[in-house]
């Protein structure tokens, strides 16, 4: 059963007189409990695609089906964590988690209870009253994750969530995200992550969708059938085989666009 169906999404940005086509007929499905990773060169529109799925951007054509029904505006069932964490600097860690709950109309005590519970879950007990300014990058991201999970979404979207963290923090964050994904007690089981780091994608995802340079198209996908937890396979051939496979598709996508551009002129 597919949770999300992305059907023929296209998007062109217009600034002044110049038009930039960023997405061209992008289609794929995401199944229940699946961890999908979208990789592609910078500027291929993968972040835009994620924003269209989140309902933050409108696509020019095509549609997003959520459980078979069109979905074009933000819903608590599909939520997102941001590259720069997207915390409101004027609210404490706890308040940041409370904020979306307040919009949903929850009472104060209920909000605080849920927020505290989620802060504890990401290991930030005791930081309730700390402002984002005083948190490290990794901690900020954990607040962002807690905020997203507090809404009990079905789908979690992640926009290059580890790219602004140092390698050790990123490693810890990756395991935290994988733990959450595999936790059967949480309703959030479908993850879509955008990344430009192929190793990271192969390490985390069930399936890697590869996009071409702008205008972004799906040029191929690689199913990653490495057993989990994958930490023990990081030095194995099977891991590198998958990485090479993704890289090969990336290269092919790039050549394809280049030949198109040359023949186009």
């Amino acid at each position, binding site marked *: 059963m597919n949770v999300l169906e992305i059907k023929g999404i296209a998007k062109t940005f217009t600034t002044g007189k110049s038009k930039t086509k960023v997405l061209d007929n992008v289609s794929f499905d995401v199944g229940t409990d699946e961890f999908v990773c979208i990789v592609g060169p910078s500027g291929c529109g993968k972040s835009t695609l994620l924003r269209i799925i989140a309902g933050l951007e409108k696509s020019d054509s095509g549609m997003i089906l959520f459980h078979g029904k069109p979905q074009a505006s933000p819903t608590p069932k599909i939520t997102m964590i*941001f590259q*720069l964490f997207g915390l*409101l600097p*004027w609210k404490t860690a706890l308040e940041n988690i409370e*904020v*979306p709950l307040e*919009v949903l109309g929850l009472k104060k005590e209920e909000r605080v209870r849920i927020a505290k519970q989620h802060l504890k879950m990401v290991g930030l007990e005791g930081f309730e009253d700390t402002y984002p300014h005083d948190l490290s990058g990794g901690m900020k991201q954990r607040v962002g994750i807690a905020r997203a999970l507090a809404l009990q979404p079905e789908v979690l979207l992640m926009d290059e969530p580890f790219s602004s963290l140092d390698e050790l923090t990123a490693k810890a964050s990756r395991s935290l995200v994988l733990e959450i994904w595999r936790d059967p007690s949480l309703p959030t089981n479908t993850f879509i992550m955008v990344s430009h780091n192929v190793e990271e994608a192969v390490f985390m995802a069930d399936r890697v969708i590869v996009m071409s340079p702008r205008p972004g198209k799906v040029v191929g996908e690689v199913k990653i059938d490495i057993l989990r937890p994958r930490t023990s396979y990081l030095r194995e051939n099977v891991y590198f085989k998958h990485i090479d496979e993704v890289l090969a598709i990336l290269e092919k996508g790039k050549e394809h666009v280049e030949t198109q551009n040359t023949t186009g002129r």
Partner: protein
Amino acid sequence: MLIVMWFRWCMQLRRYVIGFLAGLVALYVFFWLIATFVKYPEIKHLPLYTFSTVGRIVVTLVISIIWGVLFGILAATNKAASIILVPFIDLLQSIPILGYFPVVIAFLFSLGSFGVELSIIVLLFTSMAWSIFFGVVGAIHAIPVNILESAQSFGLKGWKYIRHVVLPAIAPAIVASSNLAWCDGWFFIIAAEYIQYKGEVVQPPSGGLGYLLAKAAYEYKDITLSVVLLVLITFMVVYFNFLTWHKLMERASTGTFKPVLKIELSGVGKLGIARATRRLHFGERLHWPRSLFVASQRLRRYARIEKAIVIILSLSTVTVILYSLIGQFPSFEIVQRGFSSPPARELGVLPLLIALTMGRLTIAYGISLIFAIGMGVLAAEHKRFAAIFYPLYDIGQGVPILALFPVLFLTLNQVFNSGVALEITCITMLVLDMIWYMFLNIVSAVKNIPTEIKEVGQLFGFKGIKRITHIVVPSILPSIVTGSILSWGTGWNTIIFAEYMPSTEPTIPPLSILGLGSLLDKAGYEYGNTVLLIFLLGVVATIVLSMEAFVWRRLLRKFEKYHVEV
């Protein structure tokens, strides 16, 4: 290809020439209309007056640019020079135009009619030059380290270094801050051209638009003529903006590595002004916040004690210079005489006067704040409102609002008694002056709310008032503080002219409402009591600096954590 470019260039030139000619024709028609319908003796000199005012501002601008660039480069590249120059010039720029009055008096009485011209240029200089200096200093500090290092590694030094690295880097800042200086010049034209000493008005030998406007308003009390002249000045400002500044700024803003004007405040810079100046395209044109860097310079964090020492030193230096200029060294006797002659008696109620003036400023600030937030958010988010507010801002920034003062007062005086009328006029003037800094800062801040923050608001379903209170207002708080500092600064400058309505007829005493500003006017214009004037300026400076230290800097530090790293 070449032909196309040439053709395009021709089209541009044609548009330019047509604009220029149309402006000239409009001016000519304007002069003719005024001369036909208005019958004061000065009116037939209107073209000459216009020419001499434009001439004065241009001359002062050239002097300001030369001075500002030289001293700016010196202050930014030489540590010793910067330690002395920056705080000193910082202090000079915070002195209201009236504070330079004693210097002017010296010229007036020693050099005859040339002295009058010189006085006007000095007064204009004191309201125009500082922004260029601080613009240059800020731009040099903004040159990226890697550029400087690469220049060093190639062995660029001295003049070559300045020519190949510094000058190209600061060219946009020079253009932008010259434009601010130009606007400031027009803004203060009345204060500069209508010089009063001991109740007498000194007529500039070749007249001037500011002089004529002041005369129409204060002496003839002719509302229609005042408004017509105000429109003429507005037209001049807009006309010259069209002819030169817009094009120059567009050209200057390309090919540079950093935003032109920069606020060097931790926490505020990135949110508010820095990227704002780069991105703030009001329609087709580029606009630059007037003297925003002035605030940055004021708020640099020298320790309080250091600052106090610098202030005391600079104040005493200024005093010494001023006195030696007039040819009398300060002795205790002179000081004593200053404090015993009028209007010294009013010093007894000084706290009351301060409270009254602060009250007016606070009311005006509150009104400005509310309107600026409303207008700023609307203008930043809706093109339709932007189309209304930006031209208003354009006019409000450059037009001498001081000229509205008598017009407004005379109109209100027909309904209210003179005290109430003057009170309302005073606050209205302050609002008209204070609101634009707030407005501009708020617009740029709203436009620069980081995308992620906006997306968070959208993702979690913030709408309407909730969005304003949870997302928009907290994001722009640091910019509101910066805008407030600028607003209060300009407010103090304006209150001196807003509490006092000069009178030119010896039988009628000038109208004034109780306050620190009107006392300054009395000391300066009515009695020529320099000692008292300097003392009162010291009082103003103390209030301004302590507000900075105790209110604004604290708020800024508090809002620092609101800053989003991007």
